């Protein structure tokens, strides 16, 4: 890194997959992974993780709590392809087969600070009633070939989905050198900024 200024900025995300609301299902676990653009590279932490199986709480909230930590650091040169976290929730069906209970994705918050996100979860639908029955019977529900599909828009038009529940996520975001590279993502107060004033035009 030269004295003239940094060439990359860093994004540190930590937080947790807190809990989920799946009224119909119990004993679920979740997987998460990040989807990011070509200019991004993870520098530290885990990109993917799989949680423990949790059962519904006995209280009225009927919450499924995982409190599964997320801790990853990215570096990038370009906000394009900002990381998204993709969640997929699985749980056993009546026959004991693991079936998918929901997919969901959300962008990592842009601005530094603490953010809470609740994301709706959905599953792809069977193509026909018969299919639905057999898939239920066989315990092989339709799944996405790759959970990362839910982080992109392309090709989604061919699928039909049904929403199933919600997952709540907590993010703590720290960025480094974003301002120096000319990206102003923070809240309007500039109290914590250091270094030179924001450049007036695109950096060269």
């Amino acid at each position: 890194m030269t004295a003239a200024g940094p060439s990359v900025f860093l994004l540190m995300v930590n937080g947790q997959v807190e809990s989920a609301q799946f009224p119909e299902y119990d004993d679920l676990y979740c997987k998460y992974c990040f989807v990011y653009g070509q200019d991004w590279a993870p520098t530290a932490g885990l990109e993917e993780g799989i949680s423990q199986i949790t059962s519904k709480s006995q209280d009225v909230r009927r919450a499924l709590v995982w409190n599964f930590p997320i801790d990853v650091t990215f570096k990038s040169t370009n906000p394009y392809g900002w990381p998204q976290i993709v969640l997929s929730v699985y749980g056993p069906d009546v026959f004991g087969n693991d079936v998918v209970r929901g997919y969901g994705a959300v962008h990592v918050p842009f601005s530094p600070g603490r953010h809470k996100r609740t994301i709706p979860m959905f599953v792809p639908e069977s193509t026909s009633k018969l299919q639905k029955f057999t898939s239920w019977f066989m315990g092989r529900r339709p799944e996405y070939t790759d959970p990362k599909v839910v982080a992109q828009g392309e090709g989604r038009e061919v699928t039909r989905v049904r929403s199933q529940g919600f997952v709540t996520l907590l993010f703590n975001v720290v960025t480094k050198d974003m301002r120096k590279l000319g990206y102003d993502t923070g809240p309007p107060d500039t109290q914590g900024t250091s270094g030179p004033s924001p450049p007036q035009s695109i950096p060269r």
Partner: protein
Amino acid sequence: MNPKEEKVKIITEEFIENDEDTGVGRQKKTSKTARQKRKKQLPTAGGPEEMVSENPHLGDQQEPMQEDSDTRPLSITSRRGPRSLPPIPSASRTGFAEFSMRERMREKLQAARFKAESTLLREIPALQPRRLQSPNKRELETEFGTEAGEEVQRTQQDDFQSYSRVKFRDSVQKIKPKLPVPPGFPSAEEAYNFFTFNFDPEPEESQEKPKAKTRAGTNQEEEEGGEEEPPAQGERRTDEEELLSAKNEEDFLLGLDHTAEDFIAIRPAEYESVHIRLQMERELLFVPSRVTVPTYKKLPENVQPRFLEDEGLYIGARPEVPRACQNTMENRLLTQEPGRKWFGDDGRILALPNPTKAFPSRPPMLTQAQDIKAELETLYRKAVKYVHRSQHMIGSGDPPGNFQLDIDISGLIFTHHPCFSREHVLAAKLAQLYDQYLARQQRNKAKFLTDKLQALRNAVQTGLNPAKPHKSLDTTQKAINEYKSEIREKVDQEADEAAYEAEIQAEISELLEEHREEYEQRMEAYRAAYQQWKAWKKAQRAKKKKKKQEHPVEEHPDEGLEEPYPGEEPVKPVPPEPTDQALVEQQVRERAARSRRRPGEPTLVPELSLAGSITPNEQCPRVEVLRREDVKRRSIYIKVIFNDKEVSRTDSRPLGADFRVHFGQIFNLQIFNWPESLTLQVYETVGHTGTTLLAEVFLPIPETTVVTGRAPIEEVEFSSNQHVTLDHEGVGSGVPFSFEADGSNQLILMTSGKVSNSVAWAIGENGIPLIPPLSQQNIGFRSALKRADAISSIGTSGLTDLKKLAKWAAESKLDPNDPNNAPLMQLISVATSGESYVPDFFRLEQLQQEFNFVSDEELNRSKRFRLLCLRSQEVPEFRNYKQIPAYDREILEKVFQDYEKRLRDRNIIETKDHIDTHRAIVAKYLQQVRESVINRFLIAKHHFLLSDLVVEEEVPNISILGLSLFKLAEQKRPLRPRRKGRKKVTAQNLSDGDIKVLVNIIRAYDIPVRKPAASKFQQPSRSSRTFSEKRAASPTTHSPTHSVDYPLGQVLVRPFVEVSFQRTICHTTTAEGPNPSWNEELELPFRAPNGDYSTTSLQSVRDDVFINIFDEVLYDVLEDDRERGRGIHTRIERHWLGSVKIPFSTIYFQAKIDGTFKIDIPPVLLGYSKERSLIIERGFDSVRSLSEGSYITLFITIEPQLVPGESVREKFDSQEDEKLLQATEKFQTECAFKFPHRQCLTTVTDISGKTVFVTRYLKPLNPPQELLDACPNSPQATAELVARYVSLIPFLPDTVSFAGICDLWSTSDQFLDLLAGDEEEHAVLLCNYFLSLGKKAWLMMGSAIPEGPTAYVLTREQSHYLIWNPCTGHFYGQFDTFCPLKSVGCLIGPDNIWFNIQRYDSPLRINFDVTKPKLWKSFFSRSLPYPGLSSVQPEELIYQRTDKAAAAELQDRIEKILKEKIMDWRPRHLTRWNRYCTSALRHFLPVLERSRGEDVEDDHRAELLKQLGDYRFSGFPLHMPYSELKPLIEAVYSTGVHNIDVPNVEFALAVYIHPYPKNVLSVWIYVASLIRNR
């Protein structure tokens, strides 16, 4: 024709003859006579006679001179013959003047008798006429002088014809003018003279004097008359009078002519001196001057030239005439008397617009060589065959459906329908009439005619003004007359149109004026006639007196003879009546009242309304109710047929009670080509039962100017010939019916109607009409506008831009008066006069400017931005670019270098890598095709199916359920375990080193064995057998003969196998003997290009696995025998024996390769021979010995197993018939259901990405003539040669060039142009050649080793089948076990496809008789007959002879490069080249080529040994088709010749290229290493 008229005709004929006789120098008079004649006869004969007599005279007037010169010499004598006899003319001249004549003659005769005595007594000198001659002649000559212009045609003949008669003629001429001037008919004296002359010649002389006197008198009279009367007419008249009289006289005198013949004197031949002749010519010939004629001479005096063009009349372009010619012509015309009539009002010669083409159809001749400019010089350019290259560039951004035709079908009206009641029929008639009226109204005919009338009147006015009636010239007069006649016409024509009082007045005044003019003319005529009459009277009186004196006692025997004289006594002319104005007015008014709308009377405009109420159903008779119900049941729809294909149809609409159907549908036809036909089919549906085609309506294809929004709705009529009889009130169609009660007056009406529609070209987003380019159109469709075609000059898009159009019109100087341009001018005037302001720009995003944070230039300069753009476009270089730097300064320029270079090079063909330019072009082209296909693939990659995104279990069918139930009962650990498929790995998360290629080398057969150097001249076995031997499959021909040379147990060969892949080399241990068994597994790492393990990247790996077989030779290098005990000093040498090459792509797609392959052994292997030892012979069955060559058994696979990429699901568009495509799908599913693993091919993708039925590829095509000529006697040899030619075309698998996306088939000419293709192309070409050779040949789709699914060619010889491998040129019998083809899927012939439905698919076990439907399922059968598909192949293949010099040059270059390479590969050793050996090898290569590598080994070996006896050498020729240099280098490298590091080794390398037609090159490389024997 009544007898009277006839007579007059005869008389006029007489006059013509007279004219001729008057002859030379009297032309003026002749013409005058004609006019005179006209005048004369007016009062006397009048009416029809006038016309009759006039006509011949006019004709006479036009060509008097020719007749003069040519006809006279003969005609005179012959015609005059009978004329000299008086009775004949008299007989013919019984006529109207007869009686008066008789009367007069009688008088005269009496008078003559009375004076007889005195006359006889008189003495008159006979020579008197001679004396008078000279002055007369002079007079004539002066006449000549003045009228030289009319004398052009006089010939010499004229002069000396009947010279003898000159005297008489002279006398005649002398006398003629002196005769008195009786009008029209001979005077009494003449008649008298005529009759008396024969009997008594003397009176002639006596006559002469008074005649001369009278002549003088008349002359005086004439002059006086000329002064008195208006000059033109007066003059003419007197002349005419004089002439006429002269003629009569001459007629009379010529009677004498004949009698005078008796006096002919014989004279010597006449000589005319040159001088005289010149003089005469000068007199006779007229040379017009070339000086420009001033305008005033060409126009009537005091008339300003008038330019019609300035007055707003259209004058076409005059033809180009050189100025000098024009001047000459003008001068010539002006000297003629009525010359001025040839000039127009503008003082130029009248000319019609130029009818000729503006541009010469013949190229201009360049006569002067030095005038040719450099740019006009002809350049010779070689004809270039046009290949549709651009069309393959699919990714170039042509959206599908380039062009759009909008068809708006608004509705349908029946003018007759079977369900019409009688009332409807009448109503339809009324409507038709009303339509006609409307159309007429629209065309505004009345207004148009009125305007034209007005314009013509104006023109008359302007024409009259400058030309005072007094001095009006012929031309103006004529023009005005024309106008007037036209006005008259117009008035008559439009008499039924609107009329106005003023117009009536104008007409009256016109008529009056006309009448007045006529009256004046008549008055003039009258005056002239009167004058004449008076003169005649005078003359008559004088004559009477004279006659009485001359013939006092003349006795005429027969009074009847005198009367025929046509001399008519002029009737006293009656003065014409002045026009009665009141009468004229009354006439006009009458006519106006008859035909015109009275002033003040309102204009009646008929209007047709359909407001009448319809009788409700209850009140109608039953039949009518039935009819109405029938109508209700009917509905109509229209099919749109484009190029004979139905493209769409309208909704079915019920037929209304008024027989109108409203559709209001617009069809947008997306089309590619210029439409050929556009048809609407009207269908009628009755109830739910039947649909009948009522009629077809053919729509015209719109002009390119017709675009949507501007196309008018047009009504196209149609009619149907169907016959319909209905049982209700409906009148039916095509059946007679009648309105009358009694059934008379029958009518037959056919169903007819009108479709209102509009067809127009759509306008694209950017305002450009979506019209196919003009080049696509057939010539027949071209618009009639040619030269001044606005469209061609500014393009169709310009037509929408009126400003551009107006500008063009101004620039091209369109004639605004040209009727052709009228609509254009109107459009422009409308466009330019409109004051509405149209901004010349349109801004879509008005505020874009404000939102731009940097200027565009700055943005474009940013390297980072560019990099991001390129990456998002998925440009190959940047597709996977990671972490684009945040700053421009961190981006290195060289990142773009490759990309820019590639862009630059796209169009530059560089010959650096490719020695041959043609190959370079082909390589470039392939690259481009590949890019476009990849682009398409990338696009296709973004199309998703549900199965791409969602994994969903299939609904299990009963068998699967049963199986899974069965599985439950299955043993956990079966005793005979089944082989389980390996786990397949998707290629995403792989990295270098993860993938290995496993090569299992099991064993080899029949490896060539070393030959001891001693046995130089042994007879080796031939490396291959002839065609017949192979076919015969008899092992006896190959009995081992040389086993004696090899003692049992001697090591013949120590082969080992070396496998090289991506320059990684592994080798097996050394085995012994010609049939070694290794059974070793070699592991070779695989590196994907650029570390990209994606499917696409793996598919495009082009590396080959080389499996080389070497012989390990140990040489004792111990120089001293004494040391033998203490150490072993041997050198290991390895000699290349042969190789097998397997492309990686094959391994990748096949997942495993398992089988026995033929080792590619060079035809000559120095130091080795292919021997079969007794041991081996015994050990193997005879089947093996059927086949020649060495074999190796291999098993190759990739670990882990990779999932081969799937081909793109893309339904390509096709030009095949939809039915055929459906049939192919059905056929394929049926076949796949029965035999899922057998290849069934019905449609293929051609190089432009369109689906084509496969049989279209098969068609007899001519092989190069050169090959046919090579062995004309042996068809088999020819077939082999052809197969060899095909195999010499380089092989390039589709999967490599097109990344496994799809299998593209190129046609044979494309294949030969590209000089690269895979098995299918080779097979198609070979099959086509065989077909053209007259063989029965099929394309055989199946699978072979090592290629996998492939195409072979099957031919049927007399009794057996042969299988040809098109890529190698080898052929196999059906029962050859070593045939690489392992299974047969289907056979394809030029007209059918047969799918193998036999139990087995191995060629050994199947029957190739395709006529058996139980064995072969044919595509076209009785249920689907072959429709006769046209071939996609060219008519004929054209072969260019390959440039021998270029081949030789290439040969030298390759040799040089290879030598350099070998030296490079031996960096630590000195590489010596043995020139002697090289040249020996070089001489040997052509022999190899000639013999195709067969049957030469022994001679060759012998020769080499003889030449290089003291060398120990190993070497071999390599033979390859030439595509590019790299494979050659690879091949040489893989043999490892360079690996010998014996210090004194020498090398020899020779290259030979044999050119075949069409740039197919066969490359031979002979490499040898030599070691000098000590």
